[in-house]
């Protein structure tokens, strides 16, 4: 990671990538993924890593799928990866997206975490051509919805990285 400035999806003229009003993420009631969401608020990307055998895994789980250890910890990932797959939704399936138009979703394989993948939006022109294998980097998008009972949260988005 190269610091907050370059890794922050600024809320400049374009604002958040998707219109506000989609369901906001909240840590699971069993506490499993709380470290991830807390770190995201600090613009750090965490992923699970087994403290016994070193295997990274995602989504979060209580046990390491390689060695069955319960000692699954969290490590900070570099935030660099490549596009593994993508889609461009056009049809709005939620009222918040009624005037959104097409948007891009990418599945990103992290460079330094045993190939685990994360889902996010690809920042920039929603109609751009997307190339599987293209390098990307994480960009943190802060949200503070003015909705009762909804805490501020940060989404991890992706932008194309230089070669």
């Amino acid at each position: 990671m190269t610091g907050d400035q370059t890794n922050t999806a600024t809320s400049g003229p374009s604002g958040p990538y998707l219109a506000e009003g989609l369901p906001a993420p909240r840590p699971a009631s069993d506490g499993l993924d709380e470290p991830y969401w807390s770190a995201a608020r600090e613009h750090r990307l965490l992923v699970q890593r087994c403290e016994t055998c070193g295997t990274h895994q995602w989504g979060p789980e209580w046990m390491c799928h390689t060695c069955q250890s319960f000692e699954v910890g969290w490590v900070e990932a570099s935030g660099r990866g490549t596009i593994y797959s993508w889609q461009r939704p056009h049809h709005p399936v939620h009222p918040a997206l009624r005037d959104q138009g097409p948007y891009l979703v990418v599945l990103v394989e992290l460079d330094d975490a045993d190939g685990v993948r994360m889902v996010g939006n690809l920042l920039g022109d929603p109609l751009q051509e997307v190339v599987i294998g293209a390098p990307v980097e994480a960009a943190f998008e802060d949200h503070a919805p003015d909705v009762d009972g909804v805490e501020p949260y940060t989404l991890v988005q992706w932008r194309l990285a230089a070669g």
Partner: protein
Amino acid sequence: MSEHTIRGEVAVVGIGETTYYKRGQSPDPEFKLVLRAILAAAADAGIPVPTIDGFCSYSNDRNMPARLANALGLPELRYSVMQWGSGGGGAAAAIGNACAAVVAGYAECVVAYRGLAQGQFGRFGAGARVPTISGPPAFTVPYGVMSPAQMYAMRTTRLFHEHGISPDTLKAVALAAYHHAQANPRAVMHGRPLDEATYDESRWITEPFRLYDCCLENDGAAAVIVMSAERARDVTDAPVYPLAVQQGGEYRSGATVHNQPDYATSSFKTTAPRLYAQAGVTPGDVDVVQSYENFTGAVVMSLIEHGLCTYESANEVLTADNLIAPSGGLPLNTSGGNLAECYMHGLGLQIEAIRQIRGTSTNQVPGARVALANAGPMVEVASTALYGSEEALG
């Protein structure tokens, strides 16, 4: 052929379906639809309703066996089994669970069923209207990945990338389904043909899926009754034999946030070989195929993973002409399937496979002896059944 098998031990004696409605248009509530389908299946079998003593369903069906047994006035309920989760992935598995009960002697006459009334209970295709979300969906929904099409589109993108599969294969699957629906008066899309230009000009739901690549959403119910092969011969002239049913998932098929190690898969790579081994048949013996279309891309993966074509041959084999009964080499989804007959969570596809063995399809493959019907491709736990005629038992 495996030593332990249901092959020859159990038979489908009855099939029943309600009228199939567009989503939200059923005049009946869901539970009543299920009762209607069960009565229709019993009538088809020619058995008195009180013969039924067991129930199997899937996908968290809301219509509980105890309530069904009570409503139907059954003298005894001996077996009530739910296939866990995974959307329509349990359609074949529910029939497999019914067969297992009969073979094991837990019950003698078991119904596999599914009912859907989305007007009463809400839609599959709409995103959740909630202020917050937690657990695995928290890592996808806030990015606009909410509907089933959005959950599965990226597997198809990856299929194209890894194997050079053409998007034209998706179009072929859609055209074949709509072609077959035109001869099927039960089909919701009966009288509404689809041509290539209309497909090409149809709107994107989410690239790479167009409107016609996505299943319908419907109201209705369907039911299948199984009994021992011995008793089946007493009650029907047209027993159809489930040769094998397999269910399951590959290594970490249940990984969340799109982290299945093998991503561009319909989840049949481990179950299909076991299926054929248990049935004692090979892909070359399959005369007609019903392949669950949540989305057309999944059908392409499913056909490959069931050995009915290969990654290399798919672009040549999967053309509309070749998928149409009776002239095509690989007749596919001969009722119109989930795309054009009805989305009854895949149970309609199982019934169509049974109909093909009976010789009563509206798009009959002449002399069909072995039919394959799979369920729920790309989900965590998928399932497939092979059905055969008396002749196929050999």
